[in-house]
């Protein structure tokens, strides 16, 4: 009878097991130490590994990201917690100009095995500076890998793979998922970076969804199932490099594509997936592909407005209905 734990516990267990296995793994960030991080992601780890390997830092995002690069160049495997993805804007140079590029520039003489962890997405009235989902910027940057788990199982497998990867990996943690529960094996395991998972099989329409949008889409699929509509849900899990084949395979089967994601629309992940599919399998599409994203606006604070601008299960249902009646 398999164990069910919370997403945050699975993430923590993955980090703990890697730190036990490999002394070069350490964690740095604002409050990751005795306090156990903003969302308690590292709760208890400082007690086990000490402050040398759970390093509280000043509010110096650029130096946090850059120090991680330097340590990685020397064979350490830092995990730098940048808290909210929003704060990574202060560290973009070290993430996208340095970490992403040094292995290439040096002609492979160095590698940069590090993980940048960031919480992403909607929460409760986090407002304009704490609700970001702009991971498309990282997807756009050669040299970076980007993962976004949607289940506790994926959270553990992907953090372990990210830590073991020799390139910099952006590990995104969706705030709405921290307390969701699921089956998670006790032992360490990897989920290969770049491999999608079909979270639900179906025949009439393919939804490509990531992070918290997977759950929204599953809920929508339930609703549609009652109406006899069979939806397939593909969760890329890795956003870069994404599993283009798995997506094409599903679309070739269903003939319909809806992308549900929380980033903004313009130059976002939704547009990318749609472009990938039409460039490679346009003839498989029976109706024009669609995307459901967060509306193109700064995120408002007040709940009625905040709820209005983000995707939700009802909107997914509406989008599916519109495509089927097209």
């Amino acid at each position: 009878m398999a164990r069910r734990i919370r997403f945050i516990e699975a993430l923590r267990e993955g980090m703990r097991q890697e730190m036990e296995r490999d002394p070069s793994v350490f964690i740095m960030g604002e409050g990751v130490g005795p306090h156990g991080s903003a969302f308690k992601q590292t709760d208890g780890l400082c007690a086990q590994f000490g402050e040398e390997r759970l390093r509280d830092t000043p509010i110096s995002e650029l130096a946090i990201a850059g120090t991680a690069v330097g340590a990685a160049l020397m064979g350490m495997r830092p995990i730098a917690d940048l808290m909210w993805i929003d704060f990574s804007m202060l560290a973009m140079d070290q993430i996208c100009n340095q970490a992403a590029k040094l292995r290439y520039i040096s002609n492979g003489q160095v590698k940069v095995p590090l993980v940048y962890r960031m919480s992403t997405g909607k929460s409760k009235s986090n407002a304009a500076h704490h609700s970001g989902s702009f991971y498309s910027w990282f997807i756009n940057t050669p040299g970076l890998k980007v993962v976004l788990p949607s289940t506790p199982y994926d959270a553990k497998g992907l953090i372990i793979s990210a830590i073991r990867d020799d390139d910099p990996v952006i590990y995104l943690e969706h705030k709405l998922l921290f307390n969701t529960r699921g089956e998670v094996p006790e032992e360490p395991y990897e989920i290969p970076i770049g491999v999608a998972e079909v979270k639900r099989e179906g025949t009439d329409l393919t939804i490509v969804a990531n992070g918290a949008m997977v759950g929204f889409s599953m809920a929508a699929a339930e609703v549609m199932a009652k109406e006899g509509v069979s939806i397939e849900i593909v969760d890329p899990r890795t956003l870069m490099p994404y599993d283009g084949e798995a997506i094409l395979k599903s679309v070739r089967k269903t003939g319909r594509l809806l992308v549900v994601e929380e980033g903004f629309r313009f130059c976002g992940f939704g547009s990318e997936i749609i472009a990938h599919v039409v460039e490679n399998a346009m003839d498989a599409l029976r109706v024009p592909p669609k995307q459901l994203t967060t509306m193109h606006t700064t995120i408002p604070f007040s709940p009625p407005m905040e709820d209005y601008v983000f995707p939700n299960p009802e909107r997914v249902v509406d989008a599916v209905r519109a495509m089927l009646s097209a």
Partner: protein
Amino acid sequence: MDKATKIRLLNTMLRIRKAELQLAILYKNGKVPCAAHLYEGQEAIAAGVCDHLTHNDCLTSTHRGHGHCIAKGMDMKEMVAEVCARKTGCCGGKGGTMHLFKPDIGVMGTIGIVGAGIPIAAGIALAMKMKKTDYVAVSFFGDGAVNNGAFHESLNLASLWKLPVIFICENNHYATSVAVWRSTSIAKIGDRAASYDMPGIHVDGNCVDLVYAAMETAVKRARAGEGPTLIDCETYRIRGHYEGDDALYRKKDEVLEARKHDPIEYWKHELITEGALTEEEFDAMAAQADAEAEAAGEFAQNSPFPDPEEALMLTAKC
């Protein structure tokens, strides 16, 4: 300092205190949709600094900015309503607790990104200078911000260009769970002013008279075109980082000790001993501030939420 000023400072502190306690209650009752960062125990800084400012002078502030807004003259109703996400809030519910604006009285924004208000204040001061006014800009920030690049780049630029800006560091000894000694390589933050050939003043931020005096010097300097000043105000964060933060990362006695140095108690005692205030007068002021805060809470709760569609106003259409 004349008596009227002394009383006004006390009143400002009381009004901030009561507003924050009102928000704490509203938070408990689920009227505030997200964790709020309250200012209790730091009131002397907002009061002592803003008393020198007119509506033409501007400030930028932080995630812990309610007190700064009130001290600068924001209607308590508008502030509380915004924190409660109502249409009647100073930003119509779009901003929230970490994003308060009221440009016509010089509140140019409380900002959710640590340190981000510092260069913005420098830019405001640049505009004031280029327009040949004698207005000044003030940037409030915490001890956590002084290790961020924004602090360094802005103070250098402000000094270089002799901008009329005053940098107010509120060292309340914590940045979330991180004690200042864990994050800051120097004991006295004010000493960092020397790196920019700028005056740095260190004061007990719980003594409104000392804050007031330091600010007086800094404002005079700024209005005279002599450039910026860094004022390092030492205080203590009485509450958790945000409402709901158990703050187990620090000792109870540390907090109890700090509570003994309450800025309002200090100033009340000063004024009573020198005969500028009676217990009765104090109680009356406190009661009035209480009533104002209650009314603000009522106002907020009786205000409508914005319509969902308002979210798309002001957005570049594509």
